[in-house]
């Protein structure tokens, strides 16, 4: 018998989603109480009511989660829905914490989180992983992941994402038990007797000449090559025969992101909006003076990236049997692919040879694993495979 059981569920119901999810998860666990429950919910739900119903229904020892922009499990996907994963077993230990006040900087929030990292006290569970879900709109996620890596001595594989809100970019929330918080980050420590696998891939390629960021302020790029940023995108659209509407640029932006040349690959930045002065706002900061390129992808690239991330995650299990996986991908990827996003989920299921996975679309993805010291990404598929 498996020592760790992972079960997933997905609900399209509006009114009774929490009760339905709890009932389904509990049945799949043969009535056992989940040690940890991870919930992803669209902002179309009343979070507190949803979380209370889940708690009443299956009484998890720990529950964390976040709002999202598309939810899925191997059994289904959709917008305005809820997905969840429950984990139960003797070969894993869990611990959860909340850090508030992220908007003021990562330091204070991280101070509140640090007690969650108890790996050193549990040598029988040597494999250390932590799920990190942050209010992406509060900012500072990049620095938070960096600082968390340092303060945990690089001993934890960190993964997760930025909470989302169905691409409204207004309010994003994280869940800690039945509490719902803005301006906060939640961490689920996952200690295991066997290795957990983490895979990270994106399917974007440079699609234009190198550009110099001539003027930028934080997340807002005013110009590249001295040309107003919106005009750079418009010229790229003309050159590549794509439709670009200034009043509604999101469809174009979903297929054309910016890649900051790091000298060792490209750090992706998703454009979100054109401002009145012709500048473009991005999901994360783009520094002035950076060399950048416009990047493009195709549906099969996203599916390939997710498949490769899954294979890398399975490799990380080092021969152990796969119990279940968490998958995070960008909200932009889902918007760009529409129904085609199901193809990505099918690629993950095929690579896992299992439908036992759940996840959501996030604003930015978090992954700090071996060889991945740059922790906050855009447009990237992240898979965490959990061993039996």
């Amino acid at each position, binding site marked *: 018998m498996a020592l760790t059981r992972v079960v997933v569920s997905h609900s399209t119901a509006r009114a009774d989603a929490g009760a339905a999810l709890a009932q389904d998860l509990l049945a799949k666990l043969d009535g056992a109480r989940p040690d940890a429950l991870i919930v992803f919910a669209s902002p179309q739900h009343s979070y507190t009511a949803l979380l209370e119903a889940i708690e009443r229904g299956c009484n998890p020892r720990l529950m964390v989660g976040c709002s999202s922009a598309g939810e899925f499990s191997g059994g289904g996907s959709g917008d305005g829905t809820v997905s969840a994963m429950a984990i139960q077993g003797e070969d894993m230990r869990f611990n959860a914490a909340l850090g508030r006040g992220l908007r003021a900087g990562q330091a204070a929030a991280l101070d509140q989180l640090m007690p969650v990292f108890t790996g050193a006290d549990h040598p029988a569970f040597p494999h250390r992983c932590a799920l990190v879900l942050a209010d992406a709109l509060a900012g500072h996620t990049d620095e938070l992941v960096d600082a968390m890596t340092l303060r945990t001595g*690089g001993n934890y594989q960190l993964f997760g994402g930025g909470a989302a809100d169905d691409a409204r970019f207004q309010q994003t929330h994280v869940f800690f038990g039945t509490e719902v918080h803005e301006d906060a980050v939640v961490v689920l420590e996952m200690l295991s007797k066997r290795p957990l696998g983490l895979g990270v891939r994106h399917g974007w390629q440079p699609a234009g000449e190198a550009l110099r960021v001539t003027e930028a302020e934080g997340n807002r790029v005013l110009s590249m*090559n001295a040309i107003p940023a919106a005009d750079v995108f418009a010229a790229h659209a003309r050159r590549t025969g794509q439709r670009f509407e200034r009043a509604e640029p999101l469809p174009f932006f979903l297929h054309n992101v910016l890649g900051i040349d790091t000298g060792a690959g490209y750090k992706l930045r998703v454009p979100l909006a054109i401002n009145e002065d012709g500048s473009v706002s991005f999901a994360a900061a783009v520094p002035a003076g950076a060399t950048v390129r416009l990047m493009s992808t195709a549906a099969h690239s996203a599916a390939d990236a997710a498949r490769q991330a899954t294979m890398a995650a399975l490799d990380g299990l080092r021969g152990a049997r796969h119990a279940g996986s968490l998958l995070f991908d960008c909200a932009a990827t889902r918007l760009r692919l529409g129904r085609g996003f199901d193809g990505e989920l099918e690629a993950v299921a095929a690579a896992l040879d299992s439908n036992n996975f759940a996840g959501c679309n996030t604003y930015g993805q978090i992954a700090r694993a071996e060889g991945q010291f740059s922790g906050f990404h855009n447009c990237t598929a992240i898979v965490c495979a959990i061993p039996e």
Partner: protein
Amino acid sequence: MIPFELAAVFNQLNMPATRVEGTRALAALAGAREVLLFGLDSEIGLYLPAPGLPQTLRDGNLWQGFLGECARDGSASARMPDPDLGDDTAAFGMTDGEGQAIVVFLTARPAPALDRPIRALLPLLGAKLALERSALAAEGRATAARASYQHAVQLTAALEASRRQLQEANDAAQRELEQLRRAR
């Protein structure tokens, strides 16, 4: 012979901090409404506004086309969108011999008596702009390198703490093993 006033203007143009005043003074000398100054960014192969001057140009795509013409032919004239007002304005641009800098006059081109001394002084300014661009790139790389170094130092300290923790855990395990052996 280079007029004293022009030499003084180029002194201002040589320093990013006084470059705005320099372009105004050069425009006044040439009878132009405005002067724009560009330096070659050799990494991307395009001319960009000199440091110290506004870094975003209205209709920048058209301007890049015009600057390309100037670089190819040594000088060029065209009706160009005014970077401030947006309306079409007569523009005249000239480059230095090395292709490192382009100076553009709006509304009027300099008189022949001023044209030659400007061309004579432009290569020095071009060399200075190339140095500034290299310095900016080097500064960016140095900043990134400093950040990487600091990050590496912090990581090393964190990993050293982990190593000590592992060592202590190993020592404790060895002691337990030894006790077990003795107990047998």
